[in-house]
């Protein structure tokens, strides 16, 4: 090993795909939120990319090493939120530590990391003991977040852990029986849901029943998407967006803006970008040198996919409205930063895969 090539410190393919996606997102954001938001978001993206590349230089062994510590830290923070959290709109999600932080965001990393850590040494598929351990981790964190209450994030955190268990090779029989159990227990879940959560589900089932209040967002979003047609109304030409009929068009509903102004072609391009990124990430995961690296990369990729699906499904009226931004496109610092950090982990796995081969 003489000259350090590009591949030694980053994955140029992933980097390219991510920059195209981020650029595409900024173009849409310019139309949805104007130049000021674009400027702010650009700064965040640049910070995010720096963080990503910095993380890429860290040896994956370090993540593995610090996983239990990070996990315990995030669990403690979750408890702290329950006791000392700031109440916003009836939910305690934030913790004021000089700067406000949302510990549930941390769990997006620490839960899949911890589950992967549990499986790192055992033979795969894992045995019951390890699965039980993994489930305990998942239920602990998801349960604490549910208490805030934040059903959406709680489900996402649980999913991120479950993805690790899936990727670890748990038997299909177990997966199917578990899904069946979940389906059967949904009435029970309904019973324990908060009123606002029930309303979201009901509104999702029939948004037109309450067109002026809770259903308004979805109806206007569908109008924006549908009126975009195949080729869209053109950049900054979407009446739904520009005349403010579309709610939260810089954040959760930015995909509606894209649909309205760039049409079905725009959506197709975006989805292809996402598929390429996901494929690349899964490729990195399958090339990783050990179990922990594989599982963490795979799980982060799958959760990335879940974000896309939930957002794209929500704004087109397939899923209930849950506040999930569109990954790497929606305006917002935390989301971009955590996502790029997770891609940093994957790049780290990518750049350090060769060491074992030597």
């Amino acid at each position, binding site marked *: 090993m003489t000259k350090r090539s590009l591949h030694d410190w980053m994955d140029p393919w992933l980097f390219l795909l991510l920059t195209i996606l981020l650029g595409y997102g900024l173009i849409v954001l310019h139309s949805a939120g104007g130049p000021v938001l674009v400027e702010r978001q650009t700064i965040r993206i640049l910070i995010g990319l720096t963080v990503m590349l910095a993380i890429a230089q860290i040896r994956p062994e370090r993540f593995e090493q610090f996983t239990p510590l990070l996990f315990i830290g995030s669990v403690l923070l979750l408890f702290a939120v329950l006791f000392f959290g700031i109440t916003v709109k009836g939910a305690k999600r934030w913790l004021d530590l000089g700067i406000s932080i949302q510990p549930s965001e941390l769990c997006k990393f620490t839960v899949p990391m911890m589950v992967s850590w549990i499986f790192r040494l055992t*033979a795969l598929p894992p045995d019951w003991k390890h699965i039980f351990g993994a489930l305990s981790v998942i239920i602990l964190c998801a349960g604490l977040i549910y208490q805030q209450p934040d059903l959406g994030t709680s489900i996402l955190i649980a999913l991120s852990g479950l993805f690790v268990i899936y*990727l670890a090779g748990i038997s299909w029989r177990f997966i199917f029986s578990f899904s069946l159990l979940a389906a059967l227990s949904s009435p029970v879940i309904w019973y324990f849901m908060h009123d606002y959560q029930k309303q979201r589900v009901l509104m999702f089932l029939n948004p037109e029943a309450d067109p002026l209040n809770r259903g308004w967002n979805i109806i206007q979003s569908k109008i924006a998407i549908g009126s975009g*047609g195949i080729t869209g109304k053109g950049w900054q030409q979407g009446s739904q967006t520009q*005349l403010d009929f579309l709610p939260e068009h810089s954040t959760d509903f930015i995909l509606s803006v894209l649909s309205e102004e760039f049409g079905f072609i725009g*959506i197709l391009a975006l989805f292809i970008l996402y598929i390429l990124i996901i494929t690349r990430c899964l490729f990195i995961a399958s090339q990783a040198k*050990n179990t922990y690296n594989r599982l963490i990369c795979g799980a982060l990729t799958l959760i990335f996919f879940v974000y896309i699906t939930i957002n794209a499904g929500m704004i087109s009226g397939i899923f209930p409205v849950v506040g999930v931004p569109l990954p790497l496109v929606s305006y917002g610092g935390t989301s971009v930063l955590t996502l790029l950090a997770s891609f940093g982990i994957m790049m780290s796995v990518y750049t350090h895969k060769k060491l074992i081969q030597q």
Partner: protein
Amino acid sequence: MNQSLKQPIHERKLFQGRALVALVFIIAVFILLLLRYFYLQVVQHEYYQNQADNNRIKNHRISPTRGLIFDRNDILLAENRTAYRLQVVIEKAPDFNQKLQLLSQLLSLTKDELTEIQETVKYNPVFKPITIKENLSESEVAAFAVQQHQYAGFDMTPYLIRQYNYPEVMSHVIGYVSKINAEEYEQKDQNRYASDDYIGKLGLEKYYENILHGEPGLLTTVTNARGRQLSEEVSKPPTHGKTLHLTIDLQLQQASYDAFGEETGAAIAVNPKNGEVLAMVSKPGYDINQFISGISHNDYQALLDSPDKPLFNRSIKGGYEPGSTIKPYMALAGLYHQLITTETTLFSNGVYQLPNQQRKYHDWKRGGHGQVDLVNALAESVNVFFYDLAVKLGIDRIESFLKPFQFGQLTRLDIAGEKQGILPSRTWKQDNRNMIWFPGETVITGIGQGYFVITPVQMAQALSILASKGQINPIHLVKQTKQTTHLPFNVSDKHWQAVHQGMSAVVNAKNGTARAYASDAYLFAGKSGTSQVFGKSEQDIYKKNEELPKHLRNHALFIAFAPVEDPEIAVVVVAEHGASGTKAAAPIAKKIIDVYMHQKHPELWDKEDD
């Protein structure tokens, strides 16, 4: 298999298998999502495109301005003035109920009005303005303007409202406009009318509604989600209503109205040369301005309860017996059918009897008028002469002769609400009373009594034909080109002349019944009549009508035209319960003609002065 031992190659394969399944699943989900977007963006594109347009593009109606109404000398009778209405958008008005209470004092809203507003609020679509009060007075406008900042969501909006400048005198001609009701709105073209539009309810306003109303325009606005207007464009300008130029002469109209003094009744003056109605009054009139924004219940009840029936348009709806005013037409029929000549005389002993019948038909003058010819029979209004003539004519010839004069026919005067009345005939009686015609009924038909129900406009149309010697110029209120036709039969000029002479004698001969009203300046012809209100008992025949209580007295009629030699004006006067035509109606007719002649021929008086 040793479960605790790691098998790196196997585990990598296991993971790759799982990742591949996941990738396939992911791509499948993306395809499903794409299908969803395809459905929305391609399949349902048109629907959502419309929805998007509906979101931002709003079409507002631009009300057309209602056509003006002028009299024949371009005096403005009906115009549109700016008024203000107070409206509220409930969604923009916090503590609406409290503000409404405050407003009810400021605008002196009644309890009924308040409950009506509350009712409207319940069923009002979101963001649709609700009207609190129409047509605010000047002080109300000022009072609200000062406090407007305290009333978020409330707003005064200007609009045009009808104004009648001579409301009482012109009431029964113009009629009025008022808010369209649900039934009318259903029947009208909803592209032309708004649900809170004004519509002509009576008179000319109703008859010429289509012409006066005009076509609304469209204002297209682009609005954002917060309702802020971003741009507006007149996509279709309104077509304003057309102006009406009436044949009415306001001065003569006013004079005719005033001529009645305390009396009630109707008067019509027409120009027989072209059918133009110069004046048409029904007394009493009423304030038509009251009706535009909705008359209060109490005021309306007062109008309904008034014994003088101000809302009743006597000119077109009042049905009267023509009485002796029918005699000139009877005379003409007799001459035409050669049953009498201008020289024929008859001896009146005061009573007429049909052969072999007991019933006596009386002259108005006890003992009769002696030997009379046609001219004197008209001048003295000799009943016996016309009893005899009517019997000779027979009811069928009477009917067919009177019909072209428009008796008992709609004159098609251009005003809404005309009543047809009745011209007695065998078929009419058969159809309506299911009885045959009796000869005795022909006798009284000769002096305009019996089944006759004739409206003042019909009398005016008939008189116009009589004065112009057979020319039919349809009477009308809005200026139009002359449309002269002629009677279906040809009455010789000599016969016309004889009847004119007889009517002139009524006023100008020594024995004329209206001798008292002859003018020194010009010659006019006339004929009085009495329209019976109640049949008189045998002993009351010669009793003076003036001795009866007013509501039982007969209606007084007078028809007149001037100047005799070349008639320019024909006047019909009905003075209700005026007892005798000559006493009550003739002076009114005289005043109307005087005003007209003064106006048109002042030289007649100048000569006198010389």
